[in-house]
């Protein structure tokens, strides 16, 4: 496989509702920003992979088809990827693979979602309709009619983890993480909750979405787009030299999808584990030569659908032992001045979650931190589907 680097990234501002833009416009804005970052023309790009999660959000069964021409990719290959919450990560993995295989030299990964056009006319708000729309993602024969939602399926995993590790995932700790993410989001002017102040006390007292997940510890619904451009080593060196920014190498990629049905052993979902994250990280670490993630990775952009899930994922990825996820705060690991910077973008909880492009948003932030803070290595993570079934991990390293 060939070496692959990221040569440009771009995102739109994250907003709870973009009245002024459709997803066509958002896609154009992100692509314009990414090619601008790389200082290349869209004509230099060989192929595009689209991350759009949910047809119902976009009101179209082939939502990517209008984008091909309007982003300047007419008459070139284009493929849509949809993998639940991990759509963005799997889209970037596809773009990476196309370059690594030698099939194309420069590939664009574009993620976009327009979620809050959905509207519940009864309550006169968007949220219930967004939840309902995502609710069509659950198992349709045995679970959807029981009221499956994304929140209650992640709550299942968190509750099962708490069954297995009583005493871990204390409310005080997840509330403190919420406060840290809200402080960090003030460095991200693109974030949905930029300018907001949320304290640990406010997070502690916020209402339950579904027990034990609280409102201020839950990802927001966002509309927006993100684009990441991948290139082969020789192209990347020339482009980054011209653009005047460091090359960001992709040194590790890993992914795993668990079974969705719960059972007694690993042939089925072990509810108290997020094995998908564990296996994805393990594969990415092996590829990147990482033996001690806590010592070798400085920036983590983690798909925090829920803060208690963030804690479990950090344990699954080897930053803290399983059963000791509270060490993230209790031992100061992700506290200001600690050894790891987790979600400097504010994460999906405070930065924004436009599902098909959220992981591009995370990747954009990781590249920004590696460049601006002169750090060595970052991890970008995506999770998705029922009971955190899908996990994708990408390792990025700052080059010269």
């Amino acid at each position: 496989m060939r070496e692959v680097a990221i040569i440009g990234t771009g995102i739109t501002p994250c907003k709870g509702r973009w009245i002024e833009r459709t997803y066509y416009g958002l896609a154009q804005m992100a692509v314009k920003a990414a090619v601008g970052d790389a200082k290349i023309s869209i004509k230099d790009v060989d192929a595009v992979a689209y991350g759009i999660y949910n047809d119902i959000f976009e009101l179209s069964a082939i939502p990517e088809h209008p984008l091909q021409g309007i982003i300047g990719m007419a008459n070139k290959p284009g493929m849509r990827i949809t993998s639940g919450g991990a759509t963005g990560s799997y889209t970037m993995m596809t773009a990476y693979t196309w370059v690594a295989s030698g099939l194309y030299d420069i590939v664009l990964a574009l993620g976009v979602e327009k979620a809050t056009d959905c509207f519940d006319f009864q309550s006169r708000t968007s949220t219930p309709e967004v939840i309902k729309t995502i609710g069509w993602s659950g198992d349709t024969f045995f679970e959807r009619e029981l009221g499956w939602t994304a929140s209650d399926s992640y709550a299942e995993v968190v509750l099962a983890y708490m069954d297995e590790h009583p005493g871990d995932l204390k409310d005080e700790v997840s509330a403190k993480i919420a406060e840290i993410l809200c402080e960090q989001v003030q460095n991200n002017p693109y974030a949905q909750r930029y300018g907001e102040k949320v304290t640990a006390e406010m997070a502690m007292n916020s209402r339950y979405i579904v027990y034990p997940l609280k409102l201020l510890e839950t990802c927001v619904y966002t509309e927006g787009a993100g684009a990441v451009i991948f290139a082969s080593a020789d192209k990347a060196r020339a482009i980054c030299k011209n653009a005047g920014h460091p090359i960001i190498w992709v040194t590790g990629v890993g992914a795993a999808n668990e079974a969705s049905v719960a059972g007694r052993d690993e042939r089925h979902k072990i509810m108290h584990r997020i094995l998908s994250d564990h296996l994805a990280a393990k594969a990415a670490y092996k590829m990147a030569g990482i033996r001690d993630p806590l010592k070798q990775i400085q920036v983590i952009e983690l798909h925090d659908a829920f803060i208690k899930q963030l804690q479990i994922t950090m344990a699954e990825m080897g930053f803290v032992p399983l059963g000791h996820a509270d060490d993230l705060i209790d031992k100061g690991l992700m506290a200001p001045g600690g050894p790891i910077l987790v979600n400097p973008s504010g994460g999906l909880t405070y930065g924004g979650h436009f599902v098909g492009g959220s992981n591009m948003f995370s990747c954009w932030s990781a590249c920004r931190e590696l460049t601006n803070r002169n750090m060595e290595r970052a991890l970008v993570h995506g999770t998705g589907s029922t009971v955190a079934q899908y996990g994708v991990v990408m390792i990025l390293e700052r080059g010269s």
Partner: protein
Amino acid sequence: MVPEIESEVLEVRGERYLQSNESMFTFYKRTKGEFSPYFLALKERKVILGAKCPKCKLVRVPPFVLFCPECDFEPIELVEMPDTGVMNSTPPVTYFAHSLFEHQVPFGRGRVLLDGADTALPIHVYTTKGVLTPRIFRRGTRVKVIFRENRVGKPTDIFAVPIAEIPREKQNVRGLQESALDWESPVEPELPTPDVEAKKIYHSTLLQLKKMASLVAQSERAQKDLAGWKRRINVKTSGGCFTLLIDDGKLDVQEGEVKGPDFIMVAKHPAIFSDWMSFRDSLTNAIIAERLWISLNREFTTVFKLDRLPRSIKRTGQ
């Protein structure tokens, strides 16, 4: 439901944007295909089927495979399962549901490892002991599957109840239906004898509640929250009892109890209601934390309506 107005103009930073009402839906006559024997057995025979691999002996419930993927796609055999088992993990309980499920709240969606099964059956969980809270079902809680009276061949034809709540003589009855269980006489939580402090808070809370009732009379939004709803609720607290009377948009509060209420609330402390009125806490959160109990699970809908009142009154004043 799409309102008649087809479009509207919104203004953002001086620019005008058009927005239209649209919908996306499809009707189905969807086959249950290879799952038909499972759903027909639920509907017609009150029996739960599993899929057993004759080679590795793994038993999957529900029978979601035709072939065993662990054994080079060996054809499975359908087997009848016991209707008892344990919770695979602590199930989440939904209090805030979207429009398709709001009539069911609160409901628990859990997974039961039936005796002899290797995979867990997704299932609703309910209690006969009043409102459902997150602490009633835990990993390992022993349960029995109960069948609905009206079964149509859907996952909602069945639900699980803690076996400890089922009279001993009925625990081994196969195909037990919901009508065989007593849903109407749960045991109320015990309250401590009122002390001086609790009585004091009770009286001040009662005054606040009466003031709130008068504010409802002035708030169109709050009246809408209670429109078309009639309930007589006896509320018992550690400081004393009162009655909440909801009558089609009106709220009244009276000291003491009424005979034959629609349901009963038991609050560990009267301050739960002052916290509710002053936005410090919601009645729903108090239920989740088991500081507030209601005698009928279905009456959570009433609690949900009451929870809206403080905000509706505040918005009226703005």
